[in-house]
């Protein structure tokens, strides 16, 4: 096994273990998988084996949990993981249109990563930001209100977001 937590990751792992009773070590599984994803980029089978060994669990149990929850990426994702909420409040505010717009702009389909490894486009279920729909989450940030696509087909707020990300400036702060 070649994977190992970094020094900082190891510290965090020990702090995670401290949150649960000693005889219920398995409770650390969800946070440890989150940590593994941050450390290794995504939750590969190798990462699952590593987590299993650290928590003294059979790999099959880790696999069951890692595949049950959608936030664990079982494949590598781009530097910016764009997740469009397509649940009902966002849907009636134009989420499908936002997905189509992003597909066209990024030249990928939902679920795919751009050739330069910069963007992964995904669908997400309700992000609990229904008053600002359609909502887009970029890595750990919510974008705030993106407005609506104009009648001439343009969407300046989304273009500005993509430009900002491409330039390495992160998600623009919105009101």
């Amino acid at each position, binding site marked *: 096994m070649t994977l190992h937590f970094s020094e900082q990751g190891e510290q965090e792992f020990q702090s995670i273990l401290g*949150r649960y*009773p000693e005889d*219920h070590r*398995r*409770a*650390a*599984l*969800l*946070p440890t*998988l*989150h940590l593994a994803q941050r450390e290794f980029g995504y939750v590969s089978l190798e990462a699952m084996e590593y987590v299993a060994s650290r*928590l003294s669990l059979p790999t099959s*149990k880790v696999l*069951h*949990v890692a595949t*049950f*929850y*959608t*936030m*664990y990426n079982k494949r590598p994702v781009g530097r910016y993981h764009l997740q469009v909420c*397509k*649940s*009902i*409040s966002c*849907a*009636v*505010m*134009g989420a*499908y*249109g936002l997905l189509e717009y992003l597909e066209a702009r990024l030249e990928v389909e939902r679920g795919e990563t751009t050739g330069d490894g910069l963007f992964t486009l995904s669908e*997400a*279920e*309700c*992000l*609990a*930001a*229904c*008053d*600002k*729909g359609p909502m887009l*989450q970029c890595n*750990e*940030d*919510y974008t705030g209100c993106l407005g609506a696509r104009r009648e001439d087909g343009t969407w300046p707020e989304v273009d500005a977001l993509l430009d900002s990300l491409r330039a390495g400036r992160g998600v623009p702060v919105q009101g």
Partner: protein
Amino acid sequence: MAMEKILTSAVGVPESWTIGSYEKRGGYAALRKALQMEPAAIIDEVKKSNLRGRGGAGFPTGVKWGFLPRESNVPKYLVINADEGEPGTFKDHLLMELDPHRLVEGCIITGWALGMRACYVFIRGEMFQEAHRVQRAIDEAYRAKLLGENILGSGLTYDMYVHMGAGAYICGEETALIEALEGKAGQPRMKPPFPAVVGLFSCPTIVNNVETIAAVPTIIERGGEWWAEQGCERNGGPKMYGVSGHVRRPGVFEASHGVTLEELIFSDEFAGGPRLGKDGKPKKIKGVIPGGASCPVLTPEELGVRMDFDSMMSHGAASASKRPEWVDEQLWTDSLSWPGGRPRGTMLGTGCALVMDEDVCMVRVAANLAHFYHHESCGQCTPCREGSGWTARVLDSIEAGTGTERDVELLLEICNNMEGNTICPFGDAVAMAVRSYVLKYPEEFYLHVKQGGCPYPHW
């Protein structure tokens, strides 16, 4: 009517999430008061307050607390359900982001009242910012000796931890949430035993919603009777409501429990009415989902209802809608009522409403919801796992114009067979939601079948 804001008092306050700001607003005074009170007296105040579970079920909080055994050889736990994910719901995130100390204070008071050892706040995996704020508030509380050993000299030793979910709607169900906390897939447990008896780590556990526990400091500070007076009968206190969708001013609003849905949507104090069309006139509302995706939809004629748990349960039965002659009479009658004959109303749910105007296709709405449920079904029970996907496929086919009248009947049959046949209420939620669109808007389904497609604008 400028009501005093309690649960949303942090909105607009600079750095409201810090302990300094919270204490300036009177924070942690209730904890000091509570620590001087007998635990039983605190439970009594909460019972008197008519506070009801604000995750959607509306179960009286004081009564739930009463189920917890007083004496226990094993630790007792408080678990906060911060897995806000019911589509259309966006209130708890605001509390965690802007007023996390209110939640922390409520958790400590509850821990004292119920003799608990620790509290886990189970936050949705997607809510990084909220989790960060809650963790920061916990850290500040430890530094101020409000958490940890011998809190404020009371002898109470109490810890709080944040536990992040990982993307599964079902974890909002309390036993699935406990499974997830224990490091397993979030698949609901059979009840009984209820978590109050056998919960987290097989220990007695109370699972409460964020907004519910955030109400506790004010109940202790001002008394249960005061809280009860702020609401309506059997529904105490001010409540956080939300309005999203086709309105002028979507957002979270605090109002007395018992404000009407109509006021929330149309009043300038709240959502400000439907959005305007190209002609500058307000658009017509077609339907409103009153409290999250699982709540049966209401028509524009049904909005004059009080937003409390009891009024909603007996409101909005589809009995007024006329059976189309192409739907089997017995099937239609069975669909309108609960087994036993009581008409099916809607629900308050989380109190966050979604407004849909005339441009919206109700078949497509139902299909969107069905796909959501299909994606989120935990897969344990066959009726839910298969039924949610089946309704989604039938709805897709009707929306695409390849459905038949018989397919519309089939939807009702699937829903009626799913309901009551699963471990948790998820299956019921799918049935209640999908069925309500067929019962309330049968003419739209008919139009899709007859025209061979969707007559509404693409969205």
